[in-house]
Protein backbone atom coordinates (compact mmCIF):
# COMPACT_ATOMS: atom_id res chain seq x y z
CA UNK A 1 0.00 0.00 0.00
CA UNK A 2 3.02 2.27 0.45
CA UNK A 3 3.06 3.24 -3.24
CA UNK A 4 -0.54 4.49 -3.07
CA UNK A 5 -1.24 8.11 -2.32
CA UNK A 6 -3.67 8.84 0.45
CA UNK A 7 -6.40 11.45 0.05
CA UNK A 8 -6.38 14.31 2.54
CA UNK A 9 -9.84 13.10 3.65
CA UNK A 10 -8.83 9.42 4.00
CA UNK A 11 -9.50 9.36 7.76
CA UNK A 12 -12.98 10.84 7.24
CA UNK A 13 -13.76 8.23 4.57
CA UNK A 14 -12.79 5.42 6.94
CA UNK A 15 -14.84 6.97 9.74
CA UNK A 16 -17.81 6.99 7.35
CA UNK A 17 -17.36 3.26 6.69
CA UNK A 18 -15.74 3.49 3.26
CA UNK A 19 -14.27 0.48 1.58
CA UNK A 20 -10.99 1.80 0.16
CA UNK A 21 -9.53 0.46 -3.10
CA UNK A 22 -6.55 1.42 -5.26
CA UNK A 23 -7.52 3.60 -8.23
CA UNK A 24 -5.18 5.63 -10.46
CA UNK A 25 -2.46 5.53 -7.81
CA UNK A 26 -4.71 6.63 -4.96
CA UNK A 27 -6.50 4.83 -2.20
CA UNK A 28 -10.08 5.79 -2.99
CA UNK A 29 -13.48 5.14 -1.39
CA UNK A 30 -15.32 2.74 -3.74
CA UNK A 31 -18.42 2.57 -1.53
CA UNK A 32 -19.62 3.41 1.94
CA UNK A 33 -21.95 1.46 4.20
CA UNK A 34 -25.06 2.14 2.09
CA UNK A 35 -23.58 0.26 -0.90
CA UNK A 36 -23.36 1.16 -4.59
CA UNK A 37 -27.05 0.72 -5.44
CA UNK A 38 -28.39 2.89 -2.61
CA UNK A 39 -25.65 5.48 -3.09
CA UNK A 40 -26.53 5.77 -6.77
CA UNK A 41 -30.27 6.13 -6.13
CA UNK A 42 -29.70 8.60 -3.31
CA UNK A 43 -27.65 10.85 -5.61
CA UNK A 44 -30.48 10.92 -8.18
CA UNK A 45 -33.13 11.53 -5.49
CA UNK A 46 -31.32 13.86 -3.05
CA UNK A 47 -27.59 14.64 -3.02
CA UNK A 48 -24.26 12.85 -2.88
CA UNK A 49 -20.83 14.06 -1.84
CA UNK A 50 -17.90 12.63 -3.81
CA UNK A 51 -14.22 13.08 -3.04
CA UNK A 52 -12.49 13.37 -6.41
CA UNK A 53 -9.26 14.87 -5.10
CA UNK A 54 -7.27 12.35 -7.15
CA UNK A 55 -8.05 14.40 -10.24
CA UNK A 56 -5.47 16.85 -11.52
CA UNK A 57 -5.96 20.57 -11.01
CA UNK A 58 -3.78 22.78 -13.18
CA UNK A 59 -3.56 26.54 -13.67
CA UNK A 60 -2.20 28.03 -16.89
CA UNK A 61 -0.78 31.54 -16.59
CA UNK A 62 0.34 33.99 -19.27
CA UNK A 63 0.08 37.64 -20.26
CA UNK A 64 -3.74 37.55 -20.28
CA UNK A 65 -6.56 35.07 -20.78
CA UNK A 66 -6.64 35.51 -24.57
CA UNK A 67 -2.93 34.72 -24.80
CA UNK A 68 -3.29 31.62 -22.63
CA UNK A 69 -6.41 30.46 -24.49
CA UNK A 70 -4.74 30.91 -27.89
CA UNK A 71 -1.87 28.68 -26.76
CA UNK A 72 -4.27 26.14 -25.19
CA UNK A 73 -6.18 25.94 -28.49
CA UNK A 74 -3.09 24.45 -30.15
CA UNK A 75 -3.67 21.33 -28.01
CA UNK A 76 -7.48 21.09 -27.95
CA UNK A 77 -10.06 21.27 -30.79
CA UNK A 78 -12.24 23.49 -28.64
CA UNK A 79 -13.05 27.21 -28.66
CA UNK A 80 -11.13 28.40 -25.60
CA UNK A 81 -10.69 32.01 -26.74
CA UNK A 82 -14.45 32.50 -27.05
CA UNK A 83 -15.14 31.18 -23.55
CA UNK A 84 -16.42 34.00 -21.35
CA UNK A 85 -14.94 34.80 -17.97
CA UNK A 86 -16.57 32.76 -15.24
CA UNK A 87 -17.55 29.95 -17.61
CA UNK A 88 -16.33 26.38 -18.02
CA UNK A 89 -16.21 24.04 -21.00
CA UNK A 90 -15.58 20.35 -21.69
CA UNK A 91 -12.61 19.54 -23.92
CA UNK A 92 -9.88 17.05 -24.70
CA UNK A 93 -6.25 16.89 -25.67
CA UNK A 94 -5.85 15.21 -29.06
CA UNK A 95 -2.83 13.50 -30.61
CA UNK A 96 -1.48 13.73 -34.16
CA UNK A 97 -3.55 10.69 -35.15
CA UNK A 98 -6.73 12.44 -34.01
CA UNK A 99 -7.10 10.23 -30.93
CA UNK A 100 -7.81 11.50 -27.44
CA UNK A 101 -4.97 11.86 -24.91
CA UNK A 102 -7.31 12.87 -22.09
CA UNK A 103 -10.61 14.60 -21.58
CA UNK A 104 -10.91 17.57 -19.28
CA UNK A 105 -12.84 20.58 -18.03
CA UNK A 106 -11.37 24.06 -18.41
CA UNK A 107 -12.53 27.44 -17.17
CA UNK A 108 -11.87 31.08 -17.96
CA UNK A 109 -10.95 32.44 -14.53
CA UNK A 110 -10.19 35.97 -15.67
CA UNK A 111 -6.42 36.21 -15.46
CA UNK A 112 -5.80 32.47 -15.80
CA UNK A 113 -7.16 29.25 -17.28
CA UNK A 114 -8.04 26.46 -14.85
CA UNK A 115 -7.98 22.85 -16.05
CA UNK A 116 -9.22 19.69 -14.34
CA UNK A 117 -7.85 16.44 -15.81
CA UNK A 118 -8.12 12.73 -15.09
CA UNK A 119 -5.99 11.31 -12.29
CA UNK A 120 -4.42 8.56 -14.39
CA UNK A 121 -3.38 11.06 -17.08
CA UNK A 122 -2.38 14.06 -15.02
CA UNK A 123 1.40 13.55 -15.07
CA UNK A 124 1.34 13.06 -18.85
CA UNK A 125 -1.03 16.00 -19.33
CA UNK A 126 1.17 18.34 -17.32
CA UNK A 127 4.26 17.19 -19.25
CA UNK A 128 2.33 17.67 -22.52
CA UNK A 129 1.28 21.21 -21.64
CA UNK A 130 4.69 22.14 -20.24
CA UNK A 131 6.43 20.92 -23.42
CA UNK A 132 3.94 22.40 -25.89
CA UNK A 133 2.74 25.70 -24.46
CA UNK A 134 5.75 28.00 -24.85
CA UNK A 135 5.47 31.19 -22.84
CA UNK A 136 2.70 29.74 -20.66
CA UNK A 137 3.35 28.81 -17.04
CA UNK A 138 1.87 25.40 -16.24
CA UNK A 139 1.23 25.17 -12.52
CA UNK A 140 0.03 21.93 -10.95
CA UNK A 141 -2.18 22.77 -8.01
CA UNK A 142 -1.29 20.63 -5.02
CA UNK A 143 -2.71 21.18 -1.58
CA UNK A 144 -6.29 21.48 -2.76
CA UNK A 145 -8.95 18.79 -2.55
CA UNK A 146 -11.77 18.47 -5.06
CA UNK A 147 -15.25 17.64 -3.80
CA UNK A 148 -18.31 17.08 -5.98
CA UNK A 149 -21.79 17.66 -4.58
CA UNK A 150 -24.33 16.17 -6.99
CA UNK A 151 -28.06 15.67 -7.14
CA UNK A 152 -31.33 17.62 -7.07
CA UNK A 153 -30.77 18.63 -3.43
CA UNK A 154 -27.20 19.84 -4.07
CA UNK A 155 -28.20 23.46 -4.60
CA UNK A 156 -30.16 23.71 -1.34
CA UNK A 157 -27.41 21.95 0.63
CA UNK A 158 -24.60 24.17 -0.67
CA UNK A 159 -26.73 27.34 -0.55
CA UNK A 160 -27.09 26.84 3.22
CA UNK A 161 -23.36 27.54 3.42
CA UNK A 162 -23.21 30.17 0.65
CA UNK A 163 -26.56 31.43 -0.69
CA UNK A 164 -25.00 32.90 -3.84
CA UNK A 165 -24.36 29.44 -5.37
CA UNK A 166 -28.09 29.27 -6.16
CA UNK A 167 -27.52 32.00 -8.77
CA UNK A 168 -24.94 29.97 -10.67
CA UNK A 169 -26.00 28.32 -13.94
CA UNK A 170 -24.71 25.05 -15.40
CA UNK A 171 -20.98 25.47 -16.22
CA UNK A 172 -20.59 28.76 -14.32
CA UNK A 173 -17.42 29.02 -12.20
CA UNK A 174 -17.01 31.35 -9.28
CA UNK A 175 -14.95 32.03 -6.15
CA UNK A 176 -17.13 31.21 -3.16
CA UNK A 177 -16.23 31.46 0.52
CA UNK A 178 -16.90 28.08 2.17
CA UNK A 179 -15.54 26.90 5.53
CA UNK A 180 -14.08 30.39 5.85
CA UNK A 181 -11.84 30.08 2.84
CA UNK A 182 -11.98 30.90 -0.86
CA UNK A 183 -13.09 27.87 -2.88
CA UNK A 184 -13.25 27.54 -6.66
CA UNK A 185 -16.75 26.35 -7.41
CA UNK A 186 -18.18 25.22 -10.73
CA UNK A 187 -21.77 24.18 -11.38
CA UNK A 188 -21.00 20.89 -13.10
CA UNK A 189 -20.26 17.26 -12.44
CA UNK A 190 -20.09 13.74 -13.78
CA UNK A 191 -23.46 12.25 -12.87
CA UNK A 192 -25.98 13.86 -15.22
CA UNK A 193 -27.42 15.65 -12.20
CA UNK A 194 -27.31 19.27 -11.19
CA UNK A 195 -24.50 19.96 -8.77
CA UNK A 196 -21.17 21.53 -8.02
CA UNK A 197 -17.49 20.73 -8.03
CA UNK A 198 -15.57 22.51 -5.30
CA UNK A 199 -11.80 23.00 -5.18
CA UNK A 200 -11.01 23.59 -1.51
CA UNK A 201 -7.66 23.95 0.29
CA UNK A 202 -6.76 20.65 2.00
CA UNK A 203 -6.69 22.34 5.40
CA UNK A 204 -10.39 23.23 5.13
CA UNK A 205 -11.57 20.19 3.15
CA UNK A 206 -12.68 18.17 6.16
CA UNK A 207 -14.58 21.07 7.71
CA UNK A 208 -16.39 21.65 4.40
CA UNK A 209 -17.12 17.95 3.86
CA UNK A 210 -18.53 17.60 7.38
CA UNK A 211 -20.65 20.74 6.94
CA UNK A 212 -22.14 19.30 3.75
CA UNK A 213 -22.64 15.82 5.24
CA UNK A 214 -24.45 17.42 8.20
CA UNK A 215 -27.30 18.18 5.78
CA UNK A 216 -29.69 15.24 5.99
CA UNK A 217 -30.09 15.15 2.21
CA UNK A 218 -26.36 14.53 1.64
CA UNK A 219 -24.71 11.09 1.80
CA UNK A 220 -21.10 10.24 0.96
CA UNK A 221 -20.88 8.42 -2.38
CA UNK A 222 -18.04 6.22 -3.63
CA UNK A 223 -16.43 5.54 -6.99
CA UNK A 224 -18.74 2.57 -7.63
CA UNK A 225 -21.84 4.73 -7.84
CA UNK A 226 -19.90 7.47 -9.61
CA UNK A 227 -19.31 4.98 -12.43
CA UNK A 228 -22.93 3.81 -12.75
CA UNK A 229 -24.18 7.42 -12.54
CA UNK A 230 -21.89 8.61 -15.32
CA UNK A 231 -22.75 5.61 -17.49
CA UNK A 232 -26.50 6.23 -17.14
CA UNK A 233 -25.71 9.84 -18.10
CA UNK A 234 -23.90 8.61 -21.23
CA UNK A 235 -20.61 10.19 -20.17
CA UNK A 236 -17.28 8.76 -21.32
CA UNK A 237 -14.70 7.31 -18.95
CA UNK A 238 -11.19 7.97 -20.25
CA UNK A 239 -9.15 4.83 -20.88
CA UNK A 240 -12.35 2.87 -21.49
CA UNK A 241 -14.85 4.67 -23.76
CA UNK A 242 -12.26 7.02 -25.20
CA UNK A 243 -8.52 6.65 -25.59
CA UNK A 244 -5.59 7.45 -27.88
CA UNK A 245 -7.17 5.46 -30.74
CA UNK A 246 -10.70 6.87 -30.61
CA UNK A 247 -11.37 10.19 -32.29
CA UNK A 248 -13.75 12.69 -30.70
CA UNK A 249 -16.03 12.28 -33.71
CA UNK A 250 -16.23 8.50 -33.34
CA UNK A 251 -16.88 9.07 -29.65
CA UNK A 252 -19.85 11.33 -30.40
CA UNK A 253 -18.15 14.37 -28.88
CA UNK A 254 -18.58 16.61 -31.93
CA UNK A 255 -20.79 18.89 -29.80
CA UNK A 256 -17.66 19.85 -27.85
CA UNK A 257 -15.92 21.16 -31.00
CA UNK A 258 -17.34 24.62 -31.51
CA UNK A 259 -17.84 26.14 -34.98
CA UNK A 260 -14.76 28.37 -34.62
CA UNK A 261 -12.50 25.30 -34.80
CA UNK A 262 -14.33 23.46 -37.59
CA UNK A 263 -13.93 23.84 -41.36
CA UNK A 264 -14.84 27.39 -42.33
CA UNK A 265 -14.57 28.60 -38.73
CA UNK A 266 -12.58 31.61 -37.59
CA UNK A 267 -9.78 29.38 -36.28
CA UNK A 268 -10.27 26.23 -38.32
CA UNK A 269 -8.01 23.34 -37.33
CA UNK A 270 -4.71 24.18 -35.69
CA UNK A 271 -4.89 21.32 -33.17
CA UNK A 272 -3.22 17.89 -33.22
CA UNK A 273 -5.05 15.43 -35.46
CA UNK A 274 -7.06 18.16 -37.20
CA UNK A 275 -6.81 16.37 -40.55
CA UNK A 276 -8.63 13.25 -39.32
CA UNK A 277 -11.03 15.09 -37.05
CA UNK A 278 -12.13 17.63 -39.69
CA UNK A 279 -12.42 14.86 -42.29
CA UNK A 280 -14.61 12.80 -39.98
CA UNK A 281 -16.80 15.83 -39.29
CA UNK A 282 -17.25 16.25 -43.06
CA UNK A 283 -17.60 12.60 -44.09
CA UNK A 284 -18.79 10.92 -40.92
CA UNK A 285 -16.72 8.44 -38.92
CA UNK A 286 -16.45 4.75 -39.81
CA UNK A 287 -17.52 3.72 -36.33
CA UNK A 288 -19.48 5.38 -33.56
CA UNK A 289 -19.85 5.15 -29.82
CA UNK A 290 -23.41 4.10 -29.02
CA UNK A 291 -25.55 3.20 -26.08
CA UNK A 292 -26.50 -0.47 -25.87
CA UNK A 293 -29.28 -2.13 -23.90
CA UNK A 294 -28.79 -5.86 -23.24
CA UNK A 295 -32.00 -7.87 -23.04
CA UNK A 296 -32.82 -9.29 -19.62
CA UNK A 297 -30.90 -8.37 -16.49
CA UNK A 298 -27.34 -9.61 -17.11
CA UNK A 299 -24.91 -6.72 -17.62
CA UNK A 300 -22.52 -6.85 -20.57
CA UNK A 301 -19.32 -5.27 -19.35
CA UNK A 302 -16.17 -3.84 -20.90
CA UNK A 303 -14.54 -6.21 -23.38
CA UNK A 304 -17.68 -8.05 -24.52
CA UNK A 305 -17.45 -8.64 -28.29
CA UNK A 306 -20.33 -7.46 -30.50
CA UNK A 307 -21.75 -9.16 -33.59
CA UNK A 308 -24.29 -8.15 -36.23
CA UNK A 309 -26.53 -11.08 -35.25
CA UNK A 310 -26.57 -14.26 -33.18
CA UNK A 311 -25.00 -16.42 -35.90
CA UNK A 312 -22.37 -14.04 -37.24
CA UNK A 313 -18.75 -14.92 -36.44
CA UNK A 314 -17.25 -11.56 -37.42
CA UNK A 315 -16.74 -9.16 -34.52
CA UNK A 316 -18.15 -5.73 -35.42
CA UNK A 317 -17.27 -3.93 -32.22
CA UNK A 318 -16.61 -4.12 -28.51
CA UNK A 319 -18.27 -2.91 -25.36
CA UNK A 320 -16.19 -0.26 -23.59
CA UNK A 321 -18.30 0.21 -20.43
CA UNK A 322 -21.14 -1.82 -19.02
CA UNK A 323 -22.98 -2.11 -15.75
CA UNK A 324 -26.40 -2.43 -14.22
CA UNK A 325 -28.17 0.94 -14.12
CA UNK A 326 -29.89 1.33 -10.76
CA UNK A 327 -32.12 4.19 -11.95
CA UNK A 328 -32.65 2.59 -15.35
CA UNK A 329 -33.50 -0.69 -13.61
CA UNK A 330 -31.73 -2.60 -16.34
CA UNK A 331 -28.26 -3.33 -17.66
CA UNK A 332 -26.66 -0.74 -19.94
CA UNK A 333 -23.48 -0.55 -21.97
CA UNK A 334 -21.58 1.69 -24.32
CA UNK A 335 -19.38 0.54 -27.14
CA UNK A 336 -18.22 1.14 -30.69
CA UNK A 337 -20.06 -0.21 -33.74
CA UNK A 338 -19.81 0.48 -37.48
CA UNK A 339 -21.64 3.68 -38.46
CA UNK A 340 -24.27 1.73 -40.43
CA UNK A 341 -25.20 -0.22 -37.28
CA UNK A 342 -25.31 2.80 -34.98
CA UNK A 343 -28.95 3.84 -35.39
CA UNK A 344 -31.07 3.49 -32.24
CA UNK A 345 -33.16 0.35 -32.45
CA UNK A 346 -30.52 -1.68 -34.33
CA UNK A 347 -30.51 -5.25 -33.00
CA UNK A 348 -27.06 -6.69 -32.27
CA UNK A 349 -25.62 -9.67 -30.47
CA UNK A 350 -22.99 -9.81 -27.73
CA UNK A 351 -20.96 -12.76 -26.53
CA UNK A 352 -21.42 -13.24 -22.80
CA UNK A 353 -19.61 -16.17 -21.16
CA UNK A 354 -19.41 -18.06 -24.44
CA UNK A 355 -23.08 -17.56 -25.30
CA UNK A 356 -24.71 -15.05 -27.59
CA UNK A 357 -27.23 -12.68 -26.10
CA UNK A 358 -29.28 -9.96 -27.81
CA UNK A 359 -28.86 -6.26 -27.23
CA UNK A 360 -30.20 -3.14 -28.93
CA UNK A 361 -28.60 0.17 -29.85
CA UNK A 362 -30.16 2.93 -27.76
CA UNK A 363 -29.74 6.69 -27.68
CA UNK A 364 -27.65 8.31 -24.93
CA UNK A 365 -28.07 9.32 -22.19
CA UNK A 366 -29.94 6.35 -20.73
CA UNK A 367 -31.29 8.60 -17.97
CA UNK A 368 -32.11 12.22 -18.93
CA UNK A 369 -29.80 14.90 -17.58
CA UNK A 370 -31.06 17.24 -14.89
CA UNK A 371 -28.86 20.32 -15.28
CA UNK A 372 -29.71 23.87 -14.23
CA UNK A 373 -29.24 25.65 -17.55
Amino acid sequence: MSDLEELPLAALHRELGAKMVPFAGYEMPVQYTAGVMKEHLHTREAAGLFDVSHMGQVILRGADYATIAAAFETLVPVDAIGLKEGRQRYGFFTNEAGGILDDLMFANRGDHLFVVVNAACKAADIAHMTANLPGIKVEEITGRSLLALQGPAAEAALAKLAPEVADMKFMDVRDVTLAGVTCWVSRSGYTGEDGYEISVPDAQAEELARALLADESVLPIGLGARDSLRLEAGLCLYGHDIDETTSPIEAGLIWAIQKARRAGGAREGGFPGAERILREIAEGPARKRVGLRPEGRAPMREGVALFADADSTETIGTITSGAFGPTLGAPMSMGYVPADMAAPGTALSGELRGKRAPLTVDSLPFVPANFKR
Partner: protein
Amino acid sequence: MKYTEEHEWLNPEGDLIVVGITEHAATQLGDIVFVELPEVGTEVSKEDEVVVIESVKAASDILAPLDGEIVEVNEALADNPGAVNDDPMGEGWFFKIKPSDASQMEDYMSEQEYLDLIG
Protein backbone atom coordinates in the same frame (compact mmCIF):
# COMPACT_ATOMS: atom_id res chain seq x y z
CA MET B 1 -25.63 -27.52 7.20
CA LYS B 2 -22.23 -27.61 5.55
CA TYR B 3 -20.08 -24.81 4.09
CA THR B 4 -17.57 -24.66 1.23
CA GLU B 5 -14.44 -22.59 0.85
CA GLU B 6 -16.28 -20.93 -2.05
CA HIS B 7 -18.71 -19.51 0.55
CA GLU B 8 -21.63 -21.72 -0.38
CA TRP B 9 -23.94 -23.27 2.19
CA LEU B 10 -25.34 -26.78 1.64
CA ASN B 11 -28.50 -27.62 3.51
CA PRO B 12 -29.88 -31.19 3.36
CA GLU B 13 -33.62 -31.34 2.63
CA GLY B 14 -34.75 -34.97 2.39
CA ASP B 15 -32.54 -36.58 -0.26
CA LEU B 16 -31.81 -33.18 -1.83
CA ILE B 17 -29.24 -30.53 -0.95
CA VAL B 18 -30.26 -26.85 -1.09
CA VAL B 19 -27.39 -24.58 -2.14
CA GLY B 20 -26.89 -20.85 -1.65
CA ILE B 21 -24.16 -18.40 -0.68
CA THR B 22 -23.35 -17.19 2.79
CA GLU B 23 -24.10 -13.77 4.19
CA HIS B 24 -20.35 -13.11 4.20
CA ALA B 25 -20.18 -13.80 0.45
CA ALA B 26 -23.28 -11.75 -0.32
CA THR B 27 -21.84 -8.79 1.57
CA GLN B 28 -18.52 -9.08 -0.24
CA LEU B 29 -20.22 -9.25 -3.64
CA GLY B 30 -22.25 -6.10 -3.04
CA ASP B 31 -25.70 -5.45 -4.52
CA ILE B 32 -26.64 -8.40 -6.70
CA VAL B 33 -28.46 -7.47 -9.91
CA PHE B 34 -28.70 -10.76 -11.79
CA VAL B 35 -28.38 -14.47 -11.08
CA GLU B 36 -28.04 -16.91 -13.96
CA LEU B 37 -29.27 -20.30 -12.76
CA PRO B 38 -28.79 -23.70 -14.40
CA GLU B 39 -31.63 -25.49 -16.15
CA VAL B 40 -33.57 -28.02 -14.15
CA GLY B 41 -32.47 -31.51 -15.15
CA THR B 42 -28.84 -30.53 -15.78
CA GLU B 43 -26.35 -33.16 -14.67
CA VAL B 44 -23.39 -31.42 -13.05
CA SER B 45 -20.01 -32.51 -11.79
CA LYS B 46 -18.38 -31.12 -8.70
CA GLU B 47 -16.61 -27.83 -9.55
CA ASP B 48 -18.57 -27.21 -12.75
CA GLU B 49 -19.48 -23.53 -13.10
CA VAL B 50 -23.17 -23.72 -12.40
CA VAL B 51 -24.37 -20.24 -11.40
CA VAL B 52 -23.25 -16.77 -12.47
CA ILE B 53 -23.87 -13.91 -10.07
CA GLU B 54 -23.69 -10.37 -11.37
CA SER B 55 -23.31 -7.70 -8.74
CA VAL B 56 -22.91 -3.97 -9.27
CA LYS B 57 -19.18 -4.67 -9.13
CA ALA B 58 -18.48 -7.78 -11.19
CA ALA B 59 -19.56 -11.21 -12.34
CA SER B 60 -18.73 -14.20 -10.12
CA ASP B 61 -19.09 -17.92 -10.74
CA ILE B 62 -20.51 -20.40 -8.29
CA LEU B 63 -19.19 -23.94 -8.63
CA ALA B 64 -21.28 -27.07 -8.20
CA PRO B 65 -20.30 -28.41 -4.77
CA LEU B 66 -21.39 -31.97 -5.56
CA ASP B 67 -21.91 -34.37 -8.46
CA GLY B 68 -25.59 -34.74 -9.21
CA GLU B 69 -28.70 -33.46 -10.94
CA ILE B 70 -30.19 -29.99 -10.58
CA VAL B 71 -33.79 -30.70 -9.65
CA GLU B 72 -35.10 -27.26 -8.75
CA VAL B 73 -33.92 -23.66 -9.11
CA ASN B 74 -35.07 -20.51 -7.33
CA GLU B 75 -37.08 -18.89 -10.15
CA ALA B 76 -37.96 -15.96 -7.88
CA LEU B 77 -34.39 -14.65 -8.25
CA ALA B 78 -35.11 -13.72 -11.88
CA ASP B 79 -37.31 -10.84 -10.73
CA ASN B 80 -35.74 -10.27 -7.35
CA PRO B 81 -31.99 -11.00 -7.37
CA GLY B 82 -31.67 -8.67 -4.37
CA ALA B 83 -33.10 -11.52 -2.25
CA VAL B 84 -29.56 -12.93 -2.24
CA ASN B 85 -28.40 -9.81 -0.36
CA ASP B 86 -31.49 -9.50 1.83
CA ASP B 87 -31.80 -13.14 2.89
CA PRO B 88 -28.85 -15.18 1.58
CA MET B 89 -29.50 -18.14 3.88
CA GLY B 90 -33.25 -18.27 3.15
CA GLU B 91 -35.17 -16.63 0.28
CA GLY B 92 -31.90 -16.17 -1.62
CA TRP B 93 -31.20 -19.89 -2.21
CA PHE B 94 -29.99 -20.86 -5.71
CA PHE B 95 -30.80 -24.47 -6.53
CA LYS B 96 -31.54 -27.94 -5.15
CA ILE B 97 -29.30 -30.74 -6.24
CA LYS B 98 -29.88 -34.50 -6.01
CA PRO B 99 -26.39 -35.76 -5.22
CA SER B 100 -25.16 -38.91 -6.93
CA ASP B 101 -22.67 -39.46 -4.12
CA ALA B 102 -23.95 -38.06 -0.83
CA SER B 103 -20.62 -38.88 0.86
CA GLN B 104 -19.15 -35.80 -0.92
CA MET B 105 -20.91 -33.73 1.76
CA GLU B 106 -18.26 -34.96 4.18
CA ASP B 107 -15.64 -32.93 2.27
CA TYR B 108 -17.11 -29.70 3.59
CA MET B 109 -16.87 -27.57 6.71
CA SER B 110 -19.10 -27.31 9.72
CA GLU B 111 -20.51 -23.88 10.61
CA GLN B 112 -17.80 -23.39 13.25
CA GLU B 113 -15.05 -24.33 10.79
CA TYR B 114 -16.49 -21.89 8.27
CA LEU B 115 -16.73 -19.08 10.83
CA ASP B 116 -13.09 -19.72 11.71
CA LEU B 117 -12.18 -19.51 8.00
CA ILE B 118 -13.75 -16.11 7.43
CA GLY B 119 -12.43 -14.90 10.78
